[in-house]
């Protein structure tokens, strides 16, 4: 079962492109766009809902320019 979530990642003002570079290798995270300033849109796929929280905690802990991770959509693909 995979959770698919749309998230908005809020960064420090002006930091979104730097944060984006650092997220390129993030497992399960696909960047979808941003506002060029402090917000990134991304799609995240992972094993189950609890991991979304772990993703958020991990990002916040590792990257001081990440200020928040907000889900806008959470869907579960029961099958794959």
């Amino acid at each position, binding site marked *: 079962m995979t959770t*698919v979530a*749309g998230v908005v990642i809020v960064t420090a*003002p002006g930091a979104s492109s730097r944060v984006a570079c650092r997220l390129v290798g993030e497992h399960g995270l696909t960047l*979808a766009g*941003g506002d*060029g300033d402090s917000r990134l849109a991304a799609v995240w796929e992972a094993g189950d809902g609890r991991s979304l929280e772990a993703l958020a905690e991990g990002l916040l802990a590792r990257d001081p320019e990440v200020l928040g991770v907000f889900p*806008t*959509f959470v869907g579960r693909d029961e099958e794959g």
Partner: protein
Amino acid sequence: MGSMNRREFLKASAAASALVALGSRAQAAPADPKDLTWTKSVCRYCGTGCGLYVGTKDGRVVQVKGDTENHNAGFLCLKGFLLPQVMAAPDRLLHPLIRKGDKLVQASWEEAMSLVAARFKEAIGTHGPDAVGFYGSGQGLTEETYAANKLFKAGIRTNNVDGNPRLCMASAVAGYVSTYGKDEPMGCYEDVDHADTMFLIGSNAAEAHPVIFRRIVKRKQTGKDVKIVVMDPRRTATSRIADLYISFTPGTDLAILNGLAHVLFAENLVDEAFIAKHLAFGEGTEANKTLADYRAFLADYTPEKVAALSGAKAEDIVTAARWFGAKGRTTMSMWCMGLNQRTKGVWANNLVHNLHLVTGKIGLPGSTPFSLTGQPNACGGVRDGGALSHTLPYGRLVANEKHRAEMEKLWGVPAGTLAPKPGLATLDMFRALEDGKLKAMWIMCTNPAQSLPNADRYRKALRREGAFVVVTEAFHPTRTSELADVVLPAALWAEKEGVYGCGERRYQLLEKSVKPAGEARPDFEILCDLARRLGHGALLPWKTPAEAWDEVRAVARGTAYDFHGMTRERLRTSHGLLWPLPAEGHPGTNRRYVKGEDPLVPADAPDRILFYGRPDKRAVVWARPQKPAEEVVDAEYPLWYTTGRVIEHWHTGTMTRNCKELRQANYESVAELHADDAAAAGVKSGDPVRVTSRRGSVVFKARVVDGARRGLVFVHMHDPDRMCNRLTNDAVDPVSRQPEFKICAVKLVKA
């Protein structure tokens, strides 16, 4: 659907929702400081006059940084740093407005100025020059105030020219003039760095002059045995650094100041030689008393009697006096509205000067009586520029025939042009509006419908049938512009060039950084336009403030202010210059009246000091008795009411309330109370209370604060929706005509 397709669908939905949630485009990313264009300027706010650089990108002000080479050493308070938000505020006025019925509608400049000129001409033609008036501001640039002063006094020929410094500095002015013969402090901010003892009275410098306060704190930390005395009915943030804090019943500080003088004499801490050489003694308006008379006057002000009267402790008064007068130590006094905004404001100022004079602690690094100024250009523009109803530029007086003749010559107008009688001071001008004698008023760069005491009365006057009120403003609505007949959009701060003169006699050039917003124009241009339309274009023939500056320098030449050496180029390359500065090579003057420093003191003067402001070359020690405030507490109105400022905001908040951090940190005026007063009213912090004076009634949220004085309510002045001045008393000092914002009587109930 297969799971892959489902997955694709989910991912697409997820991405779409995230992108939609980004909403509209965010603001542009903050610019890298290296990409910005930096222009040298001065802070728009208080009289400290911090130097700064304005950073612009793509024609917008995006950042501000302190000028490390100016007196503020690169420091700014939070208000100064947030100025960029003010420039782009959503309530910037972009177009002229004309009143049609009960609405203000957009108009063209031509339409608006034609109407204004017509109404002014009509008023002058039908009722004479004194039917119109100009109410200016200590925030206007020097050249703007100079232009208005010249137009109204020499062109229209009315002395109804006054300004908001009447509300804040007039008593300090009259104090300096009556004591020394000339206005303005003789010391400078650098004196803080040499002061062993500092007295702060009637000043909450921590909130109102933060960068000066920082310098005071620094001195306390780094100096040896530096002592700070703070005297204020309220224990404010300023008192945190006090070695001695003295509270007292509002209005009894004159007794305390006399009490200090009493102790100085009793303990032989006075400088007899200095007294003999440099001082005269006076009472009332005559400087014809003797030292013996003064000592007899002081006899009654024993520490015990003063303590009984004021609520201060006798031993604190003695300690304070001993610290003040200690031999071999320097003493600097600083004060502000607590002393000035009083019906006995001039007297309070005299009494502070007395202490420095009888001890000789004056004219030495660290020893000086230093009045703190509120507005960025009260000194340079209105005080020095002589734009009050009884003054002419640079120390001259309307009532002085010789001075009038000088100005007529300098201004190239026929002898007899200038009216010989002083015009209307601020409240008198608004009262003339009220009773119909004044038909038209021009209000520049200030917000009297919020800042005048007893505000409801004058708000009515501004809307009186038949009154024509023109307001030049950068924002709309303000509490004043909303009442006007014509509102003209004024260029704001970084959108224009000109000179500001701050509290330490430092004149500085504000360079233009960006174009005015919308159709806004600098007040300088608006006034020159008005002059042309009224037929006085020849008096204001300039296109830019820089063109007027040579004339301004020429008018000051030979006076006690002489800053002829401050050419525009010199101002441009310097980080402010202190007058007197009579010749181009001169470095400027840190300490006036001091031989070797002040170029107006002859090299062969017999002593280290020469008080050249008065014909007898002496400063006057005035015997000023204790007198209470005009309105004191009584059974019906049992609480003292006082008003003031907080660090987050400035004046009526038209600028600072546009900065989100400042608005958030201090959103509204609240009634600051002592815990006992709150308990007596049955309220706690956050509860609404109705505060009522004989003049008005306002509901505020109560807030119990540490440091509040029992029986005293404090409300700050920065909230347009909860105006503290609906309650304040418009009684004035008889000499300075400055109102008593600081003291009146109220009652308070749970609302």
